[in-house]
């Protein structure tokens, strides 16, 4: 059985429907790229999984029907979200951000700060005083501190300096290699996704239009749905 199974998921923002049938499945340890042009439903799919938006259709995580749960219950089952826009809790220090929602498991303060040495140096600093890249690392660290089984990274490298992006991609690669955590990555950089992801799902106008092994993603498909080759 897959860890996460979405079948025919539909979701709306008020009167305007955004998802018309998203299918996606993911096994433990899989790293999946969720792709599609802007406005095709990537973030809406994530919001549906995390129950930040009412959605219909099959949403099963580890045997649990997510549509019966509330947002915090989904997170407690082991879905860790790194949301778009890297918002940390500005008034709290780095360490406080990390321990605020920590749950027992292999990820603790030491392990997270070992993964992101920049955070270790700034443990006592207020999150608001961090650079954008450091804030992004903090938000990833915060999600890891909840000890998830599935980590969702929504545009985690957007708008960051190249060197910081490299660090974050390296961290994701480490996560894949060392932990066997299932990861869903949303990102615009096809080259980076290709390095890391085993599988890919492409959305077009709120529907799954392609899914398969990343290696099988050919030029025509990516040109057709992503606008890039």
């Amino acid at each position, binding site marked *: 059985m897959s860890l996460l199974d979405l079948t025919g998921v539909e979701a709306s923002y008020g009167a305007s429907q955004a998802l018309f049938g998203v299918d996606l499945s993911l096994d433990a340890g899989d790293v999946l790229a969720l792709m599609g042009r802007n406005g095709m439903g990537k973030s809406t799919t994530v919001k549906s999984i*995390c129950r*930040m938006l009412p959605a219909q259709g099959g949403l099963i995580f580890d045997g649990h029907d997510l549509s019966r749960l*509330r*947002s*915090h219950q989904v*997170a*407690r089952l082991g879905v*860790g*979200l790194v*949301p778009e826009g890297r*918002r940390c*809790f*500005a*008034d*709290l220090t780095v360490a*406080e*951000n990390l*321990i*605020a*929602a*920590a*749950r027992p498991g292999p990820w603790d303060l030491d392990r997270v700060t070992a993964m992101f040495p920049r955070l270790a140096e700034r443990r006592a600093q*207020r999150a608001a005083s961090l650079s954008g890249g450091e804030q992004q690392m903090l938000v990833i660290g*915060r*999600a890891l501190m*909840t000890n998830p089984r599935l980590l969702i990274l929504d545009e985690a490298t957007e708008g960051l300096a190249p060197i910081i992006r490299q660090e974050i991609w390296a961290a994701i690669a480490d996560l894949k290699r060392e932990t066997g955590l299932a990861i869903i990555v949303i990102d615009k950089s096809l080259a980076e996704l290709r390095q890391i992801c085993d599988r890919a799902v492409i959305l077009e106008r709120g529907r799954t239009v392609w899914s398969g092994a990343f290696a099988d993603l050919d030029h025509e498909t990516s040109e057709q749905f992503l606008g890039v080759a």
Partner: protein
Amino acid sequence: MIPERWLNLGILAALVAVPIWALVVDEPFIITLVTRAVIFALAAVGLNIALGLGGLVSLGHAVFFGIGGYAMGILAYHAQTFTPLAEWPFPIDGTKSMPVIWLVAVTTSTLAALLIGLLSLRTSGVYFIMITLAFGQMFYYFSISWAQYGGEDGLSIYVRNGFPGLNTLDPIQFFAICFALLCAVLGFNALLARSPFGLALNAARQVPHRVETMGLSPFRLKLVAFVISGAVTGLAGALFADLNRFVSPTMFSWQMSGEIIIFVILGGVARLIGPVIGAAAFVLLEHWLGGLSDYWHIYLGAILLGVVLFARGGIVGLVARAHG
């Protein structure tokens, strides 16, 4: 600007020094005045847990203050009239023991806060303010019509309740009890703010939906904060009734709720010592301005206006750096 820790210690030292000085120069009234400030401070420290940490503007904290007061009043009334509090299912007598009264005050205000919190925390913003105010008014009018316990006239308790090993009628000894409780609650508050619960509550105040995606229910966090907050204010209510040896519906009034909010805002919202400074400043102004004019609330209003407009962090924000 001085580090906040020094300010905290300085204020607590002053709260000890003034009554000791008053004892030396034989001014028991000043001791009582400081005790009043300490009890108000305790009530406001309670509110600050909900308001400062949780961002919950409760205009109904007089409910807990009053419940604490009536817990003391009712238990002591039955003890002084030698009538049982209840016959069924087994006879329950009143008591003049402070620790027992505190336990009852804290338990009943905890239950009330749980019930009120469960209902009112489904709303937020101005609706939350209104619904807590409505609960306050319910308790107020209930106490007015509760003829058995004095109704509008309230209940007088002739002798202050006892505490093992102390003479509570001695102002300085009663002050010591109140001050020790305030220090204990302040210590607890400091630990709470730094605990994962306190941090999560703080985070939930800033961005509620974000803590949800981290597996925490903002509703539950706020409810726990509201209950702890109500329990502390309830304890203060029991002490206040014991200070005055009198309890009346005024303790439930919305003016009382307003005053507790004023203590917090005047001193500094979310700052550990803020409510203590606010309550002390209020009692000082009440005493000093009250001596100058019957309309001293006008001056208090002007001062509060000044604080809100020009000193957002309250008095603490004016003199102390954050995160000292």
